[in-house]
């Protein structure tokens, strides 16, 4: 491993990112200094270093000629006076010749990197002509380069540089590597870090457990979860290594302070795990991920964002959409109600002018069709007796007061002699509000979808996971009860779409619920079956395959 010193950790120079990706500076006892400027700044440490030292000399970049020459002259004096052996390197043969002539010292070209990009004609152009390093991808940009890791970019595009900046041109040539160079040993088991936020329920965790299972099964991946969700125990039980994190909100911490820690500790985890891919399931990429990945010695991990659609139509999502310019891949888990999507992400998976590749999958469910239990077995497992039973799954109660609807549900169920089973989130033990009713049973099993056949009807909120489980894995009456909250997806649009297709009934906004609920309970009593719902498709496998292709798309 290249032993770069901590001083290059926060540097705006992209070369340390590439050096960390270089297999030939092997040996943990080595020190590689990425420029003559760094060497001057840290000369006492270099003199005192116990292992082998290599200094990468750089041609003139943005500094003026006099400044560049002065630094080289001082550097030459220090090297000449030093008694310790120091290897002087340059990034290209041309740079080595030029610097050797300037210094009258022996300078050799660093061993080239193996070619990073494969089968791509995409080009990323680097420039410092306007000050800080910026990059463009075709007509896109400029983007601040400090948010990207060049070791990652070189795997997805051919790097070009401003021809008037000799140093940057050397960096670009070095980044592109050579076909003949010895390729780094491929890790037979890709390492994937999945970041899951602490959402309002189990949506993110459930979706990513489905994808992670496929990555483990079909791509032999080692999957590690970086979990802000308190459902970390569920992830662990599913057999995945899990790092439990705390949000700034949970700690009551200042966001900037918390970000410093999260970036530092995520970077430490990246250095330890050396992942091939980082995936986040969220509406936006979090800053700590971007900042940690841009640090040198944090590997060249690809970055993917799993971002569901159906945003509320009033949510602008300006920053979230900008995240498309930071990731390698953005995948939208498919939504059966996509034609009713009124949010800003609608149709973005079709875009070809984004920095990230865009894709859409079939809907994702954790439970597969072949995992559904037959009705009798499911009822027995849940301890349900004879008679009709209706599952009530209205999600976490933090954002919504269900009490007016609950009263109507309990009354209508009693009238039709239907037992109610309240699905409790494994994260919540709060009283659902009708615990006093004798007809109500509690159920906090996870996942509950394999047991759906136990129920003669379901009343459900319209979150992504419940909706797709019910519409693809269940054939009895469903009453959708949308929750409209800015932190949630557009549940009303989803419910209306499903109702228009004849897949379910729903409680229309602002209208009395009693008649709808009574009619729904009557359907349950009659044993109604809905046969028009769409067939189940394996969206998790499609996302896992898209991530697998991303892993294979570069060296």
């Amino acid at each position, binding site marked *: 491993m290249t032993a770069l010193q*901590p001083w290059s950790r926060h540097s705006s120079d992209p070369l340390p990112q590439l050096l960390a990706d270089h297999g030939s500076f092997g040996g943990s006892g080595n020190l590689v200094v990425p420029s003559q400027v760094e060497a001057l700044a840290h000369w006492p440490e270099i003199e005192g270093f116990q292992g082998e030292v290599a200094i990468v000399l750089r041609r003139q970049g943005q500094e003026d000629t006099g400044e560049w020459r002065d630094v080289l002259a001082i550097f030459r004096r220090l090297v000449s006076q030093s008694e310790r052996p120091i290897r002087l390197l340059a990034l290209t043969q041309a740079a080595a010749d030029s610097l050797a002539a300037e210094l009258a010292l022996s300078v050799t070209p660093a061993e080239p990197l193996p070619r990073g990009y494969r089968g791509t004609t995409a080009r990323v152009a680097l420039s410092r002509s306007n000050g800080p390093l910026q990059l463009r991808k075709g007509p896109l940009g400029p983007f601040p380069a400090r948010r990207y890791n060049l070791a990652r970019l070189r795997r997805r595009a051919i790097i070009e540089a401003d021809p008037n900046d000799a140093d940057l041109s050397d960096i670009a040539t070095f980044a592109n590597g050579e076909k003949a160079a010895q390729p780094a040993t491929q890790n037979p088991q890709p390492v994937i870090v999945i970041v899951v936020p602490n959402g309002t329920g189990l949506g993110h965790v459930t979706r990513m*457990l489905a994808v992670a299972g496929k990555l483990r099964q079909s791509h032999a991946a080692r999957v*590690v979860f970086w979990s802000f969700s*308190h*459902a*970390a*125990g*569920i992830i*662990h*039980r*599913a*057999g*995945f*290594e*899990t*790092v*439990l994190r*705390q949000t700034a909100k*949970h*700690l*009551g*911490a*200042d966001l900037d*302070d*918390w970000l*410093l*820690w999260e970036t*530092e*500790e995520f970077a*430490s*985890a990246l250095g*330890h795990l050396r992942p091939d891919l980082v995936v986040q399931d969220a509406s936006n990429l979090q800053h700590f991920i971007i900042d940690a990945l841009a640090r040198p010695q944090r590997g060249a991990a690809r970055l993917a964002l799993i971002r569901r659609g159906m945003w509320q139509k009033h949510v602008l999502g300006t920053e979230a959409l900008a995240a498309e310019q930071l990731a390698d891949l953005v995948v939208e888990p498919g939504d059966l109600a996509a034609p009713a999507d009124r949010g800003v992400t609608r149709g973005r998976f079709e875009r070809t002018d984004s920095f990230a590749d865009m894709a859409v999958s079939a809907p994702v469910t954790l439970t597969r069709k072949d995992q559904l239990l037959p009705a009798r077995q499911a009822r027995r497992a849940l301890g349900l007796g004879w008679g009709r039973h209706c599952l009530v799954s209205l999600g976490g109660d933090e954002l919504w007061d269900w009490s007016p609807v609950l009263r109507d549900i309990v009354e209508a169920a009693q009238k039709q002699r239907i037992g109610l089973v309240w699905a409790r989130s*494994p*994260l*919540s*033990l709060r009283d659902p509000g009708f615990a006093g009713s004798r007809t109500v049973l509690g159920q*906090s*099993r*996870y*996942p509950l979808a*394999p047991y759906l056949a136990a129920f003669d009807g379901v009343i459900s909120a319209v979150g992504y996971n419940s909706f797709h489980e019910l519409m693809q894995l269940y054939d009895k009456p469903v009453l959708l009860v949308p929750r409209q909250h800015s932190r949630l997806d557009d549940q009303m649009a989803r419910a209306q779409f499903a109702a228009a297709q004849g897949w379910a009934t729903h409680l229309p906004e602002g209208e009395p619920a009693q008649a709808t609920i009574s009619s729904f309970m009557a359907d349950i009593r009659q044993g109604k079956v809905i046969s028009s719902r769409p067939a189940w498709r394996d969206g998790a496998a499609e996302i896992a395959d898209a991530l697998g292709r991303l892993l294979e798309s570069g060296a």
Partner: protein
Amino acid sequence: MSDAGKSNKPYALIRLLEQENEALRLKSARHEFRQIARELTSAEPFGLAIDLPQQDDPEDLNFPPSADALLPTLPVPAGSIQPEALAPDLPVVAVYDDELSGRQLAAALLGLLKTQYRAPFARLLFLCSSFEAVPFLGRYGYAIDHIGRSDPAEALTRLHRRYGVSQIRSVGTGALIAQINAD
């Protein structure tokens, strides 16, 4: 009504709101504590019925502490059973779960939280060897750190830098496991 009477009216209203707020905070904290006690004395505290295919227990992951000395100390929340902010001079204590689980862990936690509810003696950060109590502790607003089966004393340096933790104690006995040397 006199001018003086008029100008006092808004302040009286604010005072009344303050009193009502305080009463509500007390009620809310009492409710949270009763809920905690109910959960911890239930037949299956922390019980989760998880039906996922059986997998081998994954490895615990612990990373070396950061070398960055400039990172700020993060706050440790008081937990929802405290009606008001804890005194700033209370020590930050990490409470290790002693690898207990189920009713044993619940009983130990209840003993500790009872004391904390009546007379708060520290800011508590829970150091968990398993994920069992994480949803419970998170629900009541406590800070949690998962260290798996590693030696809790090894976590002290990191926890001291991150949260200002001064000592680690056992949840069951209160015994000192490790502490920062004041020198």
